[in-house]
């Protein structure tokens, strides 16, 4: 059976070029980049090369690029690193209601240490109103962290405008979590006007186990991992040279292919949207209809539960995700769907699709053709659907 990956936010297949770039650093050039002797020479050169590749993608200077262990770590570093470095200036942080857990749980952890945070709301499309950020700013606000695009509903925020407002009205730093968007839309840090940005190369055909963190020159954070002078003293620990080499190539490919990726993904996204909304009753698209990532779709299918849908689709080779309580591991439906006003009961029928370069129009057509039978099967055994049918008959 052909496997169709519609869950690229979980994992993308590494590009062959990425793997090839990593290969020499496992056994052949296994040296430590910090070594003065010969073994360190080639790994050090590779580290510099990858940093340049990442800097070019972000339009940053190489000294502003820090490699971490993951996108989540980069988010933690931005938030806790800022909090610990600036607590003399204030203890207030602003985030949105639809941030990733690596942001939300970071501020919740800080709250236990005496920091305060405000969550700005989003509208029904998941958009943050920059004015709401302005209104939430306080004298003691030290950081604003808003995701560039939601990892669930794909809505793209106006980070440029939010950064401008933050910098014009406060001394707070501006961070954006670009872990979902980087590699698929522009992440030019100068254009965005941010002080910090996080990105996750494994989301755009790079390896797992490495994250990117942009830290604008002059911005002060405290490291979370103390030790040696690796990553300009901002993140100690012997560098994961193979993963960093792979991340660098993934960044180069992203820069080169950004427009082609959008051109490839948009028709697939449209085929699925039209097919799902046209082929099923009582199905809704979540997120902004236009201002959204080209590689994400999020639907609510009423009266059925997401995990059952996911499992049936899995049976026919289609891998998807869901924001239902049952799939969450913490037994709560998605906080993002909740924030855009989706009833928690309806959020159970959430279907999360994330596309990638291995998807084709045929995949989209196959999915659209097969989904109605899955939905019908589950609705037929749903007591909620039974109730509605009986009510409609009356």
């Amino acid at each position, binding site marked *: 059976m052909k496997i169709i990956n519609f869950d690229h936010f979980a994992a993308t297949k590494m590009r062959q070029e990425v793997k090839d770039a990593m290969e020499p650093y496992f056994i052949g050039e296994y040296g430590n980049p910090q070594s003065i002797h010969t073994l360190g020479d080639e790994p050090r050169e590779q580290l510099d090369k990858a940093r340049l590749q990442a800097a070019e993608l972000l339009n940053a200077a190489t000294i502003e690029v820090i490699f971490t262990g993951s996108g989540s770590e980069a988010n933690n570093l931005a938030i806790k690193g800022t909090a610990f470095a600036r607590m003399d200036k204030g203890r207030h942080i602003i985030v949105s209601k639809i941030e990733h857990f690596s942001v939300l749980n970071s501020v919740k952890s800080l709250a236990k240490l005496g920091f305060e945070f405000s969550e700005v709301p989003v509208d029904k499309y998941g958009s943050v109103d920059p004015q709401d950020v302005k209104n939430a700013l306080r004298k003691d606000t030290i950081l604003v962290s808003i995701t560039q695009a939601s990892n669930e509903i794909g809505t793209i925020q106006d980070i440029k405008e939010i950064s401008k407002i933050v910098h014009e009205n406060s001394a707070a730093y501006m961070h954006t979590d670009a872990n979902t968007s980087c590699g698929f839309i522009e992440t030019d840090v100068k254009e965005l006007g941010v002080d910090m940005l996080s990105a996750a190369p494994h989301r755009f055909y790079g390896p797992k186990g490495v994250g990117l963190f942009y830290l604008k020159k002059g911005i002060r954070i405290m490291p979370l991992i103390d030790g040696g002078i690796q990553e300009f003293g901002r993140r100690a620990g012997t560098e994961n040279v193979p993963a960093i080499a792979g991340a660098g190539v993934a960044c180069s490919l992203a820069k080169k292919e950004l427009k082609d990726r959008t051109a490839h993904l948009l028709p697939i996204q449209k085929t699925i949207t039209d097919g799902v909304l046209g082929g099923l009753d009582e199905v809704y698209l979540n997120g902004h209809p236009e201002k959204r990532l080209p590689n994400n779709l999020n639907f609510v299918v009423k009266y059925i*539960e997401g995990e059952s849908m996911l499992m049936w689709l899995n049976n026919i080779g289609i891998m998807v995700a869901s924001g239902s*309580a*049952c799939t969450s591991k913490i*037994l*709560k439906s998605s906080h993002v769907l909740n924030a855009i006003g989706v009833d928690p009961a309806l959020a*159970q029928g959430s279907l999360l699709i994330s596309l990638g370069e291995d998807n084709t129009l045929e995949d989209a057509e196959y999915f659209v053709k097969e989904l109605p039978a899955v939905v019908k099967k589950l609705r037929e*055994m749903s007591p909620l659907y039974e109730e509605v049918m009986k009510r409609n008959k009356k």
Partner: protein
Amino acid sequence: MPVYSEKVMDHFQNPRNVGEIENADGVGELGNPTCGDIMKIYIKVKDDKIEDVKFKTFGCGAAIATSSMVTELVKGKTLEEAEKVSNGVVAEALDGLPPVKMHCSNLAADALHLAIEDFRARKAGKGPIGRVETPEHDEDEHDLLEHA
């Protein structure tokens, strides 16, 4: 290793006794749409025995599989025997469930017991009982992770 056992997958993909019994003698409906699970079990009782049993379930793979399994376990059994079938027995009959599913999606036996209670209430002129809402999981997810 797959998340679910082969038995769970079998009952999920080929659920036994799906449907509704018209003029059922007892109906047990249990759950909470906010948590993602609602189970509805219908029974037909004759001479104190479960002559027929059917279910409808809104929920995850485990919720559907446990509903299917409980109907299979109690069909033809006396009410007394059926009352001894617990959620634990159902989970065991499915070769176990992932730990996270044990308390949220493993309510099928409770729904069955509710159907029996409903049957008795109706006989005593005190039924039907109607849907029983189970409590939501209201733990803060951050605390939940901390204590996991």
